[in-house]
């Protein structure tokens, strides 16, 4: 009734409990902020869109993997991926990602854990690690993360209890957004330094609109584990484009794995949403992740951020229509037109890469000592990374339509050049 609404309005949140910097459990925060908590809990929903969302696939739970529902396997959807990543854990198990509620389980039980021994570093982006880090480093976040990084995943896993939680994005006192992830803090500092801005700290220097993207950039980024101490590094020292990231890796002499079929020193790209978004027209227009993935919703007398983080396609009216006055169907069609174009070119690039790998196998068989092999492998390394940069990016090209297509075009050209190198050397596959 009206009276209640007025109450709500004047004091939007009844603070029934005290939240401190060690309050980890979202349920506790939920007592003060029931509306946001409800949304947060809804990330268990699984609904598929043409290129996103996720499909709930039944499976018989086992001791090793107690999950009775998982997301669809991308390896089964497109077996070429197994050839593309041959010899790497991803060729063993790679699924469509789903809601935040599942992040901890999906990481714990992926067969990639069996394929290769994973470090505690992994948890940085799959659990509420803020409190655990602080505990471990008694009070010192960085010390804590460094300690957990060097543990085995199994040991580290015991120290965390929740998927990403309120405290990972919010200051418990003011509820302002904050970045808690060392990986992002260091990454963005390196990026800003490269642009001539020293000692950048998002928590004191970012605008609020920037923070609405940075909290997501804590995890939705390309990354690698540096050195024996398995430090989590975001490769942004030269910029955010695929070109500058590859340049950075070359400088570091980084290689993620050796391709099983071709012997190429390869690089895997993982979910560079933040990087791809940064190249798109929305980022350029100051539109942040939260604007589309956590749009405001009207609840009673209040406008709040929808904490059911999901595909905007499932919420077009709030996610898009405040800025775009087109009908829902039209907006959906615009997204899918962009995604279809990306998908078409992605498939051409995938075929090209498989061809190059085949040629390399043949050449290797013919003369494993030929100096041409090294050249051709370098092209595979590049093509692999460029194609993967779009393949692993989860918007199907929407976050930056032209840039995604440009990257795929370059990937195809790398394959062409790799194949030419072998042809020039007289290797011909029949």
């Amino acid at each position, binding site marked *: 009734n009206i009276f209640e609404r007025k109450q709500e309005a004047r004091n*939007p*949140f009844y603070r029934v409990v005290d939240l401190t910097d060690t309050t980890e459990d979202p349920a506790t925060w939920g007592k003060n902020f029931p509306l946001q908590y409800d949304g947060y809990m809804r990330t268990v929903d699984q609904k598929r869109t043409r290129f996103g969302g996720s499909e709930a696939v039944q499976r018989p739970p086992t001791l090793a993997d107690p999950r009775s529902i998982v997301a669809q396997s991308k390896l089964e959807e497109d077996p070429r991926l197994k050839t593309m990543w041959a010899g790497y854990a991803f060729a063993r198990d790679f699924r469509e990602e789903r809601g935040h509620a599942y992040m901890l389980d999906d990481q714990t039980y992926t067969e990639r854990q069996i394929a290769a021994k994973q470090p505690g570093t992994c948890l940085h982006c799959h659990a509420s690690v803020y409190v655990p880090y602080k505990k471990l480093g008694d009070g010192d976040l960085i010390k804590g993360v460094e300690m957990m990084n060097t543990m085995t995943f199994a040991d580290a896993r015991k120290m965390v209890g929740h998927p990403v939680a309120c405290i990972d994005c919010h200051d418990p006192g003011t509820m*302002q957004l904050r970045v808690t992830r060392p990986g992002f803090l260091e990454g963005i500092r390196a990026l800003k330094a490269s642009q001539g801005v020293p000692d950048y700290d998002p928590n004191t220097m970012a605008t609020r609109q920037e923070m609405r993207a940075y909290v997501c950039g804590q995890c939705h980024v390309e990354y690698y584990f540096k050195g024996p101490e398995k430090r989590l590094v975001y490769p942004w020292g030269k910029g955010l484009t695929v070109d500058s990231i590859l340049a950075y890796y070359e400088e570091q002499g980084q290689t993620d794995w050796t391709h099983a079929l071709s012997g190429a020193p390869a690089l895997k790209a993982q979910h560079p949403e933040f990087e791809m978004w940064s190249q798109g027209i929305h980022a350029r227009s100051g539109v942040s992740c939260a604007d589309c993935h956590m749009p405001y919703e009207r609840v009673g*007398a209040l*406008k709040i*951020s929808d904490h059911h983080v999901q595909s905007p396609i499932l919420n077009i009216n709030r996610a898009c229509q*405040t800025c775009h006055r087109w009908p829902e169907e039209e907006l959906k069609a615009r997204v899918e037109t962009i995604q279809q174009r990306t998908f078409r070119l992605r498939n051409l690039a995938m075929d090209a890469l498989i061809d190059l790998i085949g040629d390399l196998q043949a050449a290797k068989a013919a003369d494993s000592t030929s100096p041409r092999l090294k050249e051709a492998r370098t092209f595979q390394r590049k093509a692999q990374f460029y194609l993967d940069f779009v393949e692993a990016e989860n918007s199907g090209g929407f976050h930056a339509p032209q840039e995604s297509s440009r990257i795929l075009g370059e990937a195809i050209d790398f394959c062409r050049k790799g194949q030419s190198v072998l042809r020039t050397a007289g290797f011909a596959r029949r």
Partner: protein
Amino acid sequence: MKFPVSLMVLGAVLFGAAAGIGAYTFIYAKGYSYLTDDPSACANCHVMNEQYDGWVKSAHKGAAVCNDCHTPAGFIPKYLTKMENGFRHSFAFTSGEFPEPIRITPRDREIADEACRKCHADITEAIDASHRPGMELSCLGCHARVGHL
């Protein structure tokens, strides 16, 4: 509210009146319409027709008049702003010296942004509450079109 500036402008208005041109328009072209709250008065200047038409189509037609969004709260500030804009626009109108398409000035954009909260403070409390001053989101970032379809 930059009081001194406005006072200077107020002075300018009086001086302008003496000097003629501005005040001449102010009267002949109904520049004084700025002093009323009647939207159709704003449209006395055909160059305002576009915004007037846009406003008529907007959800705010029945809710807010031009001055609700284009003048700050409070009597003195409101009329100082009206004076300043009225004079500046009158002058621009007569001299024909103004950018096309007409663009809101940064200051008036802030005024409009503040104006939203005059009426919607309740509903937006949740998204504003938890933030230190200066960290408010700009309503116009998402709702730039509300005043004019």
